[in-house]
């Protein structure tokens, strides 16, 4: 915003100069002829400081209310076009949920976006770039998913620039990272829906799993076959509410549902 007129702008500069020194040392400036001068003259003030305050009030009000737009200017050169559609708003909402509650799913979410030909929506582009500034692999994956807009935005907003110069392994960018699953559960990674759900359900019913197993069970649900997720969520949700691990089972059921939903939302 710019000042409404050059005389008022000059007058305001003079007022600021006097205000800096104080009216004990400097007289207030004369207002430029016009309504502002009339207004200030109309006020009956005994002292220099009172006259100055009246002038400052009138000047500040006039400048705020009378601001005008600056001159029109050129637009930025646009980023290279990206023909891919932005993934749906619901998927962006799921990404936010994943980041908040189940970050273990984030890598798979981004890779699914890439594999299915979506591009990241704007709010996720910025969120991902900021989240992974120090992680070269995830940052590279985010850049692929975002497309040309990622580099374009980073050029204009340096705060988004990477904080790592680590080399990136191309395979690592395109592959879901491995998660630790103990040998006794490893068979379930490739199991069909019935086997997966019944095995987990039975293990919870027998009290085999407790809070100490949470980390590996989260890894298991995050990397099991996608087609088992719905049944797994049902089986986990049906665990006896009075059993010692009912809370863990309900929590894992939410993980299974979230992963199922995130993959369904990204179907094209």
């Amino acid at each position, binding site marked *: *915003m710019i000042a409404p007129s050059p005389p008022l702008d000059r007058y305001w500069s003079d*007022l600021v100069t006097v*205000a*800096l*020194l*104080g*009216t*004990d040392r400097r007289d207030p400036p004369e207002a430029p002829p016009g309504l502002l001068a009339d207004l200030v003259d109309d006020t009956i003030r005994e002292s220099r*400081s009172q006259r100055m*305050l*009246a002038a*400052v*009030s*009138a*000047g*500040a*009000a006039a*400048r*705020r*209310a009378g601001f005008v*737009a*600056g001159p*029109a*200017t*050129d*637009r*930025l*050169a646009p*980023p290279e076009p990206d023909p891919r559609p*932005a993934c*749906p*708003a619901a998927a*962006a909402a799921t990404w936010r949920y994943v980041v*908040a*509650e189940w970050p273990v799913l984030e890598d798979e979410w981004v890779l699914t976006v890439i594999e299915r030909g979506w591009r990241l*929506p*704007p*709010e996720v*582009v*910025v969120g991902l770039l*900021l989240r992974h500034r120090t992680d070269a692999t995830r940052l590279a994956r985010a850049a692929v998913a975002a497309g040309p*807009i990622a580099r*374009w*935005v980073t050029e*204009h*907003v340096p*705060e988004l620039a990477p904080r790592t110069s680590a080399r990136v392994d191309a395979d690592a960018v395109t592959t879901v990272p491995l998660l630790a699953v103990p040998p006794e559960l490893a068979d379930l990674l490739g199991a069909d829906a019935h086997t997966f759900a019944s095995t987990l359900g039975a293990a919870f019913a027998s009290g085999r799993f407790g*809070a*100490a197993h949470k980390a590996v069970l989260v890894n298991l649900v995050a990397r099991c076959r996608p087609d088992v997720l719905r049944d797994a969520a049902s089986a986990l949700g049906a665990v006896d*509410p*009075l059993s*010692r691990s*009912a*809370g*863990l089972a*309900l*929590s894992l*059921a*939410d*993980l299974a549902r979230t992963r199922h939903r995130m993959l369904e939302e990204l179907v094209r």
Partner: protein
Amino acid sequence: MVATGRWTIEQVAAVAPSPSSLGAAEAIAVPQRWAGLGCDDLMLWGRCSGSGAEPYETAVDHVDVAWRCTCPSRRLPCKHAIALLVMWVRGMVPEATPPPAVARWARTRAGRADGPAAKPGAGAVAEPDGADRDATDRGSTPQPDTGAVPGTGDEPEPTDRPEPLPPADGDRARDERVARMREGLVELDRWLDDRIRTGLADPSLARYATWDDLAARLVDARAGALANRIRRLAGLVGSDPDWHARVLAELGVLHLLAQAGRRLADLPGPLADSVATATGWQVRQADVLAGVPDTDRWIVAGRSDTREDRIEVRRTWLRGAASGRWAMVLSFAAYRQSLDRSLTVGTAIHADLHRYPGPALRALVGERFGEPEPLVAPPASSIVGACDEIGTAVAAEPWLERHPATVLAAPTRHGGRWVLTDDSGTLPLLASPRALATVLAATGGEPASITVEWTPHGVVPLTVHAADRALDVGPVADPSFVGVA
């Protein structure tokens, strides 16, 4: 929410802030981790050994559904409260007599519930269904747009107010208050005069006490709105190379208010209302709600959170689809309380709004008719059109600090700073790197419909209205301050 009898694990899951927090609670839902466990027909309690030196003291009201815990978690209920409930569901918590602190809490809660207006969610106690009511209650606090916030002498009017005074006493109380405020305004003007005499280069301006002492006196004079303005002004000193001009302009506005506030009786009605609000006069929420409603389809155009002293303030800007008029709904949150989330940016609600007196935009949401409609954008104007609109509002109330506008414009750089531009002109853009990057990513540098909040120093982007989504990019409350629940 009132629960009867022992809960089920599903009910515990329903009050947990997230499914993963239930999993976290599971790990500590073992009696070995707890001391002093007990329950009765109203409460559960216990002390859980955590990472701190002292155990966390947790209590849950399982009938009226409330919890408190001495742990530092921002998520309510915390995992300790959930763990206590989980153990109770499983029959691991013995019947006992509540310890004095729990009994006291129970009595306090019962007293509130029996009172004329129970107010849930205050302090360390939160109720899962209390957020909205809480926000509504806090909505009775004065308008922080003019700076008034709770805890600074402009607390919300107590809902359990005493009986009204007899007319003669009421008049006397009002006269006393007018006199106190008048004295405060005279003192403010004297202080401004001193600043102008000694100059802005006076080193005393750099001392916070210079400003804080005046703010305290204004609070005493029941001019809390002006006190907050003074505190904000203190933050401007030395903040950038141009701070002298910015501080001077604000001193001018304060002088205007100090003079106008002493001449309220001589001012036209709407202007007097505006000056009264800006100086700190409160209007009872009940009086506002008793006014004629402004019914429209209100488009939720933007949201902006700011910290006012020790209170987080959320401004939600609404625009009437039929009338085109703007309105602002405020929500407040003290430490660990929650801001109102019932108005979602990019939606529209058909509702009654009840406006506060005067030309200011503040309003309360009254009756709502139906569910919010998704994906609605307010009409956008040109940059010059927005300047006209804002200038008209600021000319009517020169003490305004914010005003909304929706413009069809593109973000670009000009003269080393970010601006919004169209064929008619530019407006300087004030945005955090994250908000700026999101605006750029959403627009690709092309014109887009953007709701902004005008301030004397530039416009703050609040919402990018895209074809298939509304991107809320407004300033967000500090998550370490407000509650997550």
